[in-house]
């Protein structure tokens, strides 16, 4: 796996809707910009070799970093794969939609649910929104949220951006009734 750069973003929100948010709402993003393992090979029918060479190593790299960057227990999480314009969206999906990748994050965050994800193909510097849900119960409505990310100068056409996102809480000022109370 060839990594060009790694991006870490920490967002701290202390006011929303004109009211204080205390403690600060924290969200962390860690993303690696890597060469697309299938670039230059035409249409590859069986992606398993590239998955085998890349997915677990990538998950093991990103998961501890995003938990450390958050600096608080993880309550919601999500993931992203943004494929450069020479690749297929399936290449990004191949790297993030395997247990080999996601289990590193589930273990580091003590999580049990499926990781919500965004997959898209885009030019360098494109904006993408990563969906997050609660780490043990995906129906907990207060934790449905998404975070906007843009990585300058990535992905190049032959690259893939793979990212993990962790939140220490639900939405700031969340106040929707729980799913279980709805008629």
């Amino acid at each position, binding site marked *: 796996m060839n*990594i*060009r*750069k*790694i*991006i*870490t*973003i*920490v*967002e*701290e*929100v*202390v*006011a*929303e809707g004109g009211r*204080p*948010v*205390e*403690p*600060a709402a924290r969200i962390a993003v860690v993303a690696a910009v890597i060469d697309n393992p299938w670039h230059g090979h035409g249409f590859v029918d069986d992606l398993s070799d590239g998955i085998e060479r890349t997915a677990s190593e990538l998950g093991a790299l990103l998961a501890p970093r995003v938990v450390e960057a958050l600096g608080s227990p993880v309550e919601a999480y999500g993931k992203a794969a943004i494929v450069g314009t020479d690749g297929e969206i399936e290449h990004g999906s191949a790297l993030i939609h395997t247990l080999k990748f996601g289990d590193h994050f589930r273990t580091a965050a003590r999580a049990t649910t499926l990781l919500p994800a965004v997959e898209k193909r885009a030019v360098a*510097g494109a*904006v993408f929104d990563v969906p997050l849900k609660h780490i043990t119960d995906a129906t907990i409505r207060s934790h449905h949220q998404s975070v*906007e990310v*843009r990585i*300058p*100068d990535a992905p190049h056409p032959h690259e893939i951006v793979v990212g993990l996102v962790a939140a220490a809480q639900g939405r700031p000022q969340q106040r929707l009734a729980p799913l279980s109370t709805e008629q």
Partner: protein
Amino acid sequence: MTATDTLAPRSFELFERSTLREFEEIGALIGLRSIITSTEELPSAGGEPALILRASAVAVIANPWIGTSTEFDLQPETVRIAPVLAKLLTDRLLDAVGGAQRVEAFGKAAVVGLDGELEHAGALIHTPYFGNLVREALGGTSILCFADGRAAPGGNIRVPLWHKTAASTRSHYQSLDVSLRDAPHTDEIAVIAAVSTGPRPHARIGDRATDLPVTSEILKGIAL
């Protein structure tokens, strides 16, 4: 009306303590909404420490001068708010790159929302109440290079950096592309500080010490 009109000022000790945590109260007193810290790491081979880290921190605050005229004295709020912004931002940059001894280049920027004046952005970064504190925290002596502007939320700003003690060091001329997602709202200001722990990757365009004398004389017979 601002917080200072309605509340008696309180004194906070911020010289010794970190603002990485438990900054919510001081944040509220300067109208802070969010801080976003981004770090770009160019990895080296073989698990060695990162070659170069480049980091930016963006604080978004309520514009304390919304609704005031172009005659309004900006100094009191600058003196109150700008040092706290410098502290909040540099604490995060130093945490991101591992201390002032690792910082080699720095820069700053401010973007005011559409209901404010460009001068409001300048008031928060172009005075000693911000610049001197950023320079001191990052261990520099150079003047800080900068960008400023007025914009709708969701744009990007390219923040210039140069060497923190020798501004004309050509290898360290660089800039950081910083995202301003959801900021600044029309009544807000985004204030930014940025650092790099090294020069441009593969810098190789010489320096003042190696330049030959060049004037427009060369246009009289340029070899193409």
